């Protein structure tokens, strides 16, 4: 019985060990890194960090989509794009085989930021969409309101993922409109309608008066009475001016992507704050 129990213990411990080993060594290829807010530059308090982590966990549960916020004091001589992409790739972020996720990098070195997308992130966040999010979050970065900026970022990620659910992400043909913008648009519609109304009645009114004063006497020119005694066109001089020609370019919707050092495909955009 005692022998039996040691044997059982042995089997049990091997079983347990292999289970732990599986968890520790086998999962990194599939499961994500659980550290969602990596505040190396120490821009956030612990409480803020916890709160942001919690909202990110919500999104992961809701959409199966990874969200990472990284702050750093150095880009290690990389571009902000390369640093963000590599950070995402080499730290095991992203959900599923396609490693769906988005990473928001803030570097204090030269005050760079970068939003990098991966996998499904390229579908949900188009160039237009990332631009729209940048518009909303970068000003807070500039003001040093890092926590505000990050929590807004997470809110927008939530909204944009929700919109992208039925395969229609916010893009140049499906613009992101806030309710206040909507109110303004409707107000503008009313103003334009009023102007059209005003123009219409003015046209109706102007049709009621066909009186014009006559500043000419052309009806009273005696027939064939024009008699020209001098008609000379004298050439005087010429001059030439030249202007340098310029060319222009245009853009359309969708996501543009690039390949990171690990060979995976990313989308995104960044800048200075």
């Amino acid at each position, binding site marked *: 019985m005692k022998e039996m129990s040691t044997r059982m213990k042995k089997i049990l411990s091997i079983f347990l060990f292999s289970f732990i080993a599986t968890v520790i060594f086998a999962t990194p290829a599939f499961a994500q890194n659980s550290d969602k807010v990596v505040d190396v530059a120490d821009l956030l308090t612990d409480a803020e960090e916890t709160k942001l982590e919690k909202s990110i966990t919500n999104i992961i549960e809701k959409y199966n989509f990874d969200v990472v916020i990284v702050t750093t004091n150095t880009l290690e001589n990389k571009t902000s794009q390369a640093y963000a992409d590599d950070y995402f790739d080499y730290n095991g972020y992203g959900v599923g085989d396609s490693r769906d996720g988005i990473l928001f990098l803030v570097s204090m070195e030269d005050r760079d930021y970068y939003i990098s997308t991966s996998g499904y992130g390229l579908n949900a966040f188009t160039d237009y969409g990332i631009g729209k999010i940048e518009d909303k979050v970068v000003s807070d970065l500039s003001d040093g309101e890092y926590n505000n900026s990050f929590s807004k970022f997470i809110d927008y990620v939530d909204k944009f993922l929700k919109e992208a659910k039925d395969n229609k992400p916010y893009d140049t043909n499906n613009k992101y409109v806030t309710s206040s913008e909507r109110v303004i648009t409707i107000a503008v519609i009313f103003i334009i*309608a009023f102007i059209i109304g005003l123009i219409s009645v003015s046209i109706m009114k102007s049709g009621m008066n066909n009186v014009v004063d006559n500043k000419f006497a052309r009806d009273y020119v005696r027939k064939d009475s024009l008699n020209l005694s001098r008609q*000379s066109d004298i050439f005087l001089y010429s001059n030439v001016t030249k202007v340098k020609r310029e060319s222009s370019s245009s853009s359309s919707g969708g996501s543009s992507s690039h390949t990171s050092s690990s060979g995976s495909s990313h989308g995104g955009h960044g800048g200075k704050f």
Partner: protein
Amino acid sequence: MAVINYKCPCCDATLTFDGTSQQLSCEYCGNSFELDAVKQYDEASKSAEGESDFEWQPYQADSGNGDWQEGETDGMKMYVCSTCGAQIVADENTVATFCLYCENSTIIPETVSGMLKPDFVVPFKKSKEDAKEALKLLCKGKKLLPDFFIKDNRIEKITGLYVPFWLFDGDADAKINYKATKTRHWVDSNYSYTKTDHYMIAREGSIGYNYVPADGSSKADDKFMESIEPFDFDEAVDFNTAYLAGYLADKYDVTSDECKDKINERIRNSTLETFRSTIEGYSTVVPKNINMQIKQGKIRYVLMPVWMLNTKYQGKIYTFAMNGQTGKVAGELPFSKKKYFSYMFGITGVLSVIATIIYLLIF
């Protein structure tokens, strides 16, 4: 040897003669010119200098057919409106019951006085029925028209009126210089080029005007009278009081002298327009010197036939006038404020609701 100083056509600085190129050049703006071109430029500029002057022979009682003969005005009477002061002449069998200018019914008969005998009269060719039809047509489709306006008993009030006109005849001698340019554009891989050739254009000549009319009645609005022009003066006949039968006639109260500025402006504009039409092929043409002369211009005093209806609506007089010879119509119709605002807010409301629904469905 006389030295002629030529002015630069570009900047007015004095030109110097360059013996090697045989051209005149300007040190100030750097342009050089052919000697012949500068000579012509100089001559044309001097020719068109000086003030314009339009000289009209004054119109006097004996200028036209002379004054009334003894007893000629006996068969006529005059109505004076006690409200607007209009003085309307009619033959003794025509009874006026209201003032055709202000709709007032207190008009007082008086004996004819202070009326010049017209030289000519252009008789009515259009009937009252024609005038009524023309007014109805004018009112058609006018959504803001007050309902009362088109009622038959009102339209009956359309009146045939001889309006006094001064007619001006004269030959204008004009000398006009223009600055003109021709431009040409081309491009190469780096630059786009514009070449501008500068010209001076000189036009001199004469143009004749016959029967340029000016409204001699202060009651008949000049604008309306100008709108129903032209009258064909070839159909005018010597004045005879018999033509007044069944119509009213207004007395002139604006002298020919007071009409001159208006006439001069019209002749000037038309002369400019005609001369300008002889210039073709340039990208810009701007008149530089304008000199016009009229000598011994002649003035006539004529009655022109007009069908007229004046309507007082909310304190304002609205006039309908039709040329009694050609049927040309000028009118200002009253508009109902109530209809105006209902249309304005109706259109605003419908449009904004539809646009908002479409907007919310799309976004």
